């Protein structure tokens, strides 16, 4: 019972906090660009607005189009169960490991790509094709990252990743590779651009172009949560866990602050990259992810050498 409670708590945390992270990154970007920009809570307003609006569904679409938002949000939340957030092991760590996480994300992506084809708009097809292209290139690099980390810590279970003391070199290299992967997976510059609706450059946005209202809200929420899941994984890789247990309340509070600060640091880095980078051509993304792959190989070699 306590376990189910922890899982629920974690899921609610993800649902409530994930939009904030996106707003936070957008705010940093706006500040760096000397813009005033929208408030930090804008994603919440967007979600509230979308939930209260009527929905338009294409007449050519089938049940795949209507069912996909649920598949996307369910798979993303299922992946969120696998991440250790405030306790040391994930609340549902017996459900699956790091590899299973990749497959669970793939489930949501599969339905998203199908839904994009369903409306019969060329943009949807374009987005679907590009998304599957990017994700199939992400897969080998991600596999290397998982293997490097797992070789270092002796298991693919996410809960064992990360240590108390110094961070091994392999984890740092793997984390850089993972950062590139996260940029591609969360459709950020230079691979994709969340802010544009220019038809020829968008990937993720092209896939969800036909969605509106509540369905769009679910998909947006899923993207926020997915981003947060990745950030937590990256934080786990590159920062020491810190504290073994709660000794005093003040220490516990300090630890939670440190935990959140790490996410904030990653958010700032991602925002800086987005501000500094220009959008790549789609086929340059192959080089970008090829670089992540090479970093992954280096991480594996480091892990084999035991450093």
């Amino acid at each position: 019972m306590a376990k189910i409670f922890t899982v629920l708590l974690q899921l609610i945390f993800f649902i409530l906090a994930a939009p904030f992270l996106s707003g936070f990154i957008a705010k940093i970007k706006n500040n760096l660009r000397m813009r005033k920009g929208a408030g930090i809570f804008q994603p919440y307003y967007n979600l509230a607005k979308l939930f209260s609006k009527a929905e338009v569904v294409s007449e050519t679409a089938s049940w795949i189009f209507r069912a996909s938002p649920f598949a996307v949000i369910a798979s993303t939340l299922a992946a969120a169960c696998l991440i250790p957030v405030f306790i040391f092991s994930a609340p549902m760590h017996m459900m699956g490991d790091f590899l299973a996480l990749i497959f669970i994300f793939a489930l949501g992506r599969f339905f998203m790509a199908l839904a994009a084809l369903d409306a019969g708009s060329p943009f949807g097809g374009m987005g679907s094709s590009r998304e599957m292209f990017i994700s199939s290139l992400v897969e080998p690099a991600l596999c290397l990252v998982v293997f490097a980390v797992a070789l270092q810590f002796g298991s693919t279970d996410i809960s064992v990743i990360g240590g108390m003391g110094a961070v091994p070199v392999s984890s740092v290299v793997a984390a850089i590779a993972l950062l590139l992967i996260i940029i591609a997976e969360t459709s950020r510059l230079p691979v994709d651009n969340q802010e544009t609706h220019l038809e020829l450059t968008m990937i993720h946005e092209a896939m969800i172009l036909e969605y509106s209202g509540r369905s769009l809200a679910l998909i947006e929420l899923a993207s926020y949560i997915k981003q947060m899941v990745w950030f937590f994984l990256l934080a786990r890789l590159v920062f020491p866990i810190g504290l073994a247990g709660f000794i005093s309340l003040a220490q516990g509070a300090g630890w939670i602050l440190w935990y959140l600060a790490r996410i904030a640091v990653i958010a700032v880095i991602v925002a800086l990259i987005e501000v500094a980078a220009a959008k790549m051509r789609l086929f340059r993304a192959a080089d970008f992810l090829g670089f992540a792959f090479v970093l992954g190989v280096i991480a594996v070699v480091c892990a084999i050498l035991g450093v």
Partner: protein
Amino acid sequence: MANFLAKQLFLFDPLSLFFLVVICIVSLPSAVYSFGYLKGEYSSKKIIVAWFLLFAFVLTMALVVSVRNAFAFLVAWEIMSLVSYFFVVFDSKHDKSIQAGLIYIVMTHAGTAFLTAAFLIMHKYAHSFDFFAIRNACQVMPAQIKNIIFLLLLIGFGTKAGIVPMHIWLPYAHPQAPSHISSIMSGVMIKTAIYGIIRFVIFILGVSSSWWGQLVLVLAAATCFAGIIYALMEGNDIKRLLAYSSVENIGIILLGVGLAMFFISMGLPYLAVFSLIAGLYHLINHAIFKGLLFLCAGSVYKATGTRDIEKLGGLIKKMPQTAVYFLIGAMAISALPPLNGFVSEWLTLQAFFLGALNAAGGAKLFLVICAAMLALTGGLAAACFVKAFGITFLALPRSHYVVNAKEVSLSMRAGMLFLSALTVIFGLAAVLVIKILTKVAAAATGIDTNSMSFQLNNFILNPQSAKSIYLSVPLIALVLVVLGIVSFAVYNLCRKKTQVSQTWGCGYYRLGPRNEYTATAFSKPFRIAFSFFLLPYRKTQKIRETFYHVKSFSYETHTTSVFKKYIYLPVIAWIFKSAKFMRKIQPGSIHLYLSYIFLTAFLLIMFMNKF
């Protein structure tokens, strides 16, 4: 007599029984399916022939996996190949079938020739064709001979399995057979070659050097990649796409088998059993979902009369049930949880990880790179099946073929339903399947597995790694379903109206099927990114009325098969060249022929004299 036969001719150990189960599990629904499929498609005489051949086919496959005598094996193998040849040329009115049949029969006999050579060498040492006699003889066989036998067996069985570069016949032959046979050929027949590799290389020959496993791994990784990238490019024929995907999946199965061989030679029995379980699990999974997908493709063909997916689209509304079955098959083959393909691909990746964890030195990196290849293949497979399902079933119909399409008959749906249910069952009951497969792997490798445990309660667990690794497919399924239901409930809580309207077309209000994305367009990014392998050819032509007005635009693209271009065409050219040379000594002159006879007789007498 019966007892004698059972003892001397047949062998029903767990490995054979496992393959018999695989054969039954696909053949049964395919046979049921063929009731509806054959009706109206062929004349009643041909239907009788088809049934006869089907029984012969299934029976010979069963013989192949259950005899205990290399000679009987070869006979059964040959009959199996011939019967399947008749199925390839079953639609003999198409030129394509005849051509496919020719390629198939040439390749399969080339493979059989290698097998025959291997068996004869074995017989030379064992003085018997009995499996166990050969097995005993192999214990004392020189390493060199063992290596030669291994290579012969690998080429021989590899041809049937479709390992690159011997896969060339597979995408021709499988699509041409009637769909219920395609499903058996892709689902089961090519697996008999995997049986051959496990039975003859692992069980009889015994893996003696570590390069065997490495060679199989490299070939398997290449097979995975080549198979799926060609499947992804294939847009004109859905059955050809599935056939190429079979090549990929054979690669994944062989990754498991190759890993097992590698670990046996490294002296890591636990991992060898684990890898073989992964390979065998993927084998039965592939039999199930590829059988299912071929049946679905057959239903689409039956309903529309075309296999060209560029001409299809919107079938989900016309054939809702077939669409669901195809979707389940596509999800399973893309390794999506909680279906069966996910479990076996996860196991294979885990086998790689545990291998990398326990192997020494450079082998670690080798295994990790192989695993990365597998991951790339997985990503491409998902893209391939998004394309296959999305273009065939979703959006608007692209041609008149779809307009009159109807849901297929009950017997056909029953076959598909059975296999769809199995994909779910084999996903959820992973622990049970692994328990059974442990026995099969133990029988195949001769390793005692009593002390090995691969699962605890309902969770798969690996005690070989320092820390436990968990995977619970039922739990994943439960979480997904619960979260899906909850989000659906939340969605329905805010009751807002949903209106149905046109697809947004940037202000263009007549979006039609011509505006849809096509399969060729879908695969374009892959064609460009992997152009080093695919060697794409592209030609565009504008036909202008005036300088300013383009009347029509033609676009042509295709990819070049590197294997055909650099291996098969040179070999064929060489054969023709040598045939031309040989023609010179056969000019048709009776005098010359008489002198040949004289010369031969003379040489023979000389030869006899010498001994």
